[in-house]
């Protein structure tokens, strides 16, 4: 590891608190390869914790990366390099970036050969950086995937997307063999990533609702009208709430 690395002397790059339970070392082990399915928010959220702590990230082959979503999840856009189209020389590009950045997000434009994979893994180990692959990577130490997801706050023609409850499953090799799973708000109502407080009752929708229902205490069933957002809230249920208060 070069002496001017951003987070010197740490073998483990931090991740967001909500994701710690999913990773065997409660963080991203330097020199390892971690995969996620698809280049979505999960991939960005994994890099966010280290970015907050001062690490540099590079995203290779992700032209559609939603920077605003990444920033809301905690990624620092000042320390993010985007290489949207690495073309046919992507292995050299990734190798060069593994030397300079702490985390490289990669969606390989084509399926890498076993030899190429080993070469890039060795490069990551030598420079002590983490390769986060959005997609397949046969030799990955840890694999994270979204097992189920459910959006809250939106109905049939009313409301809007507010938050998404996601079950993330992690499986790995060696020390990480035991599959781990966690329910997360990915993203939460403000775009951040947070653990779901009460994973057992999946259908009682949005987190804002959870906050609101804590106030009127006893009158729980009325809470299911909530969505408070659309025309639905102005019906008889709304008047009922007024009369109780």
């Amino acid at each position, binding site marked *: 590891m070069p002496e*001017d690395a*951003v987070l010197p002397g740490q073998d483990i790059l931090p991740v967001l608190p909500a994701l710690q339970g999913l990773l065997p070392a409660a963080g991203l082990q330097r020199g390892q390869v971690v995969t996620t399915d698809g280049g979505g928010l999960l991939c*960005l959220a994994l890099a966010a914790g280290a970015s907050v702590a001062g690490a540099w990230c590079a995203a290779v082959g992700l032209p559609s990366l939603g920077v605003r979503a990444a920033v809301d999840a905690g990624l620092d*856009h000042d320390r993010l390099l*985007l290489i949207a189209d690495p073309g046919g020389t992507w292995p050299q590009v990734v190798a*060069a970036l593994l030397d300079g950045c702490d985390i490289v997000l990669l969606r390989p434009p084509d399926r890498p050969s076993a030899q190429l994979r080993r070469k890039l893994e*060795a490069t990551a180990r030598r420079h002590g950086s983490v390769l986060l692959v959005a997609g397949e990577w046969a030799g990955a130490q840890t694999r994270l995937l979204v097992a189920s997801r459910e959006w809250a706050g939106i109905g049939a023609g009313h409301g809007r997307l507010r938050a998404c409850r996601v079950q993330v499953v992690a499986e790995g090799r060696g020390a990480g063999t035991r599959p781990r799973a966690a329910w997360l708000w*990915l993203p*939460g109502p403000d775009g951040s990533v947070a653990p779901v407080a009460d994973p057992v009752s999946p259908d009682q929708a949005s987190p804002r609702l959870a906050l609101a229902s804590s106030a009127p205490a006893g009158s729980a069933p009325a809470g299911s009208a909530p969505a408070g957002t659309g025309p639905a809230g102005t019906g008889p249920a709304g008047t009922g709430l007024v009369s109780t208060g």
Partner: protein
Amino acid sequence: MTGATRAPRRVLVLCCPDWPAIPAAPVLGPVPALGPEPEQGPGPDARAFEQVVATVEEFCPKVEVLRPGTCAIGVRGPARYFGGESELARKIAAAVRKIGFSGQVGVADGLFAAELAARLGGPPGSAGLIVPQGGAPAFLAGQPVAELGIPELGYLLPRLGITTLGEFAALPAVEAANRFGTQGVLAHRLASGLDPRPLAPRPPSVDLSAAREFDPPVEQSEPVVFAAKSLADQMHARLAAGGLACVRVQVQVHSADGRQMTRFWRHDGLLSGLAVAERVRWQLDGWRPGRSADGEGPGPGAAAGGITLLRLIPDQLVRAVGRQLGLWGDAVVSDRVARAAVRVQAMLGHGAVTRPVLAGGRSPAEQVLLVPFGDAGVPERPADRPWPGSIPAPAPAAIYPVPLPARVTDDSGEAVSVTGRAQVSAPPAWISAAGVPARAITSWAGPWPLTERWWDPARARRQARFQLVTDDGSAWLAVVQDGRWLVEASYD
């Protein structure tokens, strides 16, 4: 340097009216539209004007090209040599006419007055309009405020009852500053016949580049990189002798098989000879195909004919004033990151490595500006404004650079449309995008109409936006524009 009391120097401006249409007839006055067709290709204006500049350079070596069609020289020295200002003006006009262009000359105190004088031209038969020393304020006083070339003021001042520069100059400078800010101060100085900035002459066309030929052609990068260091030192010495620095340095490499590769590298007067040499090495590495994946040592395909010539050309010369890094603000780019980024730029080009800057806007794609690594980017739409009508948080995780055309239908298979009053023809039930098989829509929200920039036909936009959730749990941001559905972004 430009104190309020200091009179500006005498300046001569040569102006070729209606420049792009180059008149062949050596006559002054209104230019007939019968001239030969301007030659095609990039920047023909600028290249043709080079001839005029070269002609003027024979009178005075320090010519400042203001834009194609207009150039300026300081008049004091040449006027003494050529026998007075009017004589100099006459000689320059004649010389320009001799090479087949028509030009008008104006001489006055300060660039602004001189340019205006050149545009107006003198009485018929004279070489040009010469405003006597100290006469600039009087000359300017009668001109309309539109001549300031500042559209806001040209519009606003007449509405305030100020139609001529003289009336504007009569206002106290403090009031101009209070009401119109920095721009007002500048305009007020111009209207009063003062110079807003000193003339920055184009340096005489000395070749500041440095080149080395290789005979026989060299196969390895090392000798080229070694030569690059001494060339860079040479170039820096020449720049320093002229008190100049360059914003970018252009590295040209010719190979024995006739190919040529040119790259611009950001310099900002900050790179040492060694650093330039390092960039030459990156450029050579990026050029040569068949390299090993981790970038160590040339691969088997390195011998691409050998290198015959290396040339370093300073680009965008500026005065060397030194440069200081920002005290705070920019995230400090560590050497290690910069090295990696520049190496990737050597492989893919300057624009291929970008840093995102948050900008303002109502659609997700507008909210991010991608700035090439090493450049400074300031978004024209600041992010810290309210932007009513933008999509509320959470932001989509994937924004397609090119929106995907989609087909959205209702339960009966009819395409869903949105009326001008934002009424949906039927609840959307199925979506298929870019060849993906149809998926059922489980919940949806919208339409949210958006009408933007109706005053600017080129950028005007009218659309209705929807959020859709499909039966596999994915969420999408879709828009209807001109009756067509487009998927703009995905939320997971």
